[in-house]
């Protein structure tokens, strides 16, 4: 049971990106919870690039056993987390369309992008 459930979640997550990026006239979608989480694991953000509609609440979850941060690189960025230890979460709302780049300030080779449509 568990295996098939996780498999289904993985499929949905993978499916979310192409679906949402093509949803130009979708209007306010029924809040796609599945597409608003970004996992931090093995020193990577997954997915590294995420497209969401304006107004999306995005949550990062650190699944590594070392701390990471989520910090935007643009001036005035809404992304700035404290240190996230294992299982800690950080969330913020993306209200304005645009491209938001971020990284882990502890391990700067870890980078990610949020595209808000």
């Amino acid at each position, binding site marked *: 049971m568990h295996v098939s459930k996780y498999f289904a979640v993985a499929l949905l997550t993978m499916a979310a990106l192409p679906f949402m990026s093509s949803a130009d006239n979708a209007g306010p979608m029924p809040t796609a919870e599945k597409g608003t989480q970004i996992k931090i694991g093995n*020193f990577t953000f997954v997915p590294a690039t995420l497209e969401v509609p304006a107004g999306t609440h995005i949550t990062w979850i650190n699944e590594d*056993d*070392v*701390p990471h941060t989520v910090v935007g*690189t643009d001036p005035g960025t809404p992304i700035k987390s404290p*240190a996230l230890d294992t299982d800690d979460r950080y969330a913020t709302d993306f209200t304005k369309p645009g491209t938001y*780049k971020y990284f882990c*300030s*502890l391990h700067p080779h870890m980078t990610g992008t949020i595209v808000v449509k």
Partner: protein
Amino acid sequence: MQSNDDSPKGMNRRQLLKCAAWAGAGVVWVMDGGVPRALKFMNTADAKTTGFSFVQVSDSHIGFSKDANPDSTGTFKAAIERVNALPQKPSFLLHTGDVSHLSKMEEFDTAKEILSAYRGDVHYVPGEHDTIGDNGAAFFERFNGTPARKWYSFDANGVHFVALVNVLDLQAGGFGKLGTEQLEWLEKDLHGRPSSTPLVLFTHMPLWTVYPQWGWGTDDATQALAYTRKFGSVTVLNGHIHQVLQKVEGNVNFYSALSTAFPQPAPGTAPSPGPMKVPADKLRSVLGIRDVTYTPGHKSPGVVEQTLA
């Protein structure tokens, strides 16, 4: 470069120790003009244990309590006990960063308390775990005396030591970084020093690119090392990657140190550079300290790794 040994400006040999003694497991390297030579272990009974040595400890990660080491406080204590048990008391300690795991004041407090068991000076550089949220202000105040004292240098027994900070203002997609201000300071700091002065640079992240996929390097290290080119003996000590690695490049000998908290995988041997779990009874064999000794007749130091096993 060896001819510089005899220059009037060369290191004062009388300041250096007569003979070196090492106890415990490890490999002894002595370097001459940048070329390392393996030495046999000396018998401590034959040794006159006077002179000049120092110890590098690194990556104590006080506050870390995950599976890879539920007791990083205990292993750091054990490391300092090892330091205190050395047959030759080191002149001082260098801590090459990640003193704490999460830059918390109580973690800094615990580290300070454990280090107080060593009766001598400790010189610090921060790791990226020590500068979370405030770009190192609390760390510098706590360990360097003032938030303004980030990088610095000092002399000991004719050797010039430089503390470099490569974990501040890191840029997305980049590695460790020294930054323009620090590089300018370094150039001035080294300017005018005799080329026969042995240099020790100590910092947290490696000053050579160990493994870019894991971010193990420092973006502007090449510029820093360019300032050291005229010096016959340059020793670079770093932490961050929790394993012993050595590299020789021209006049520069790079050494990466063990952690006192947990090991990390060799480059590319795991999905990520995260803490590596080893069987509990093996943990202390992959944690350790580094004893560095300058001996007469050699411009570069002997370096001994000592595990906590």
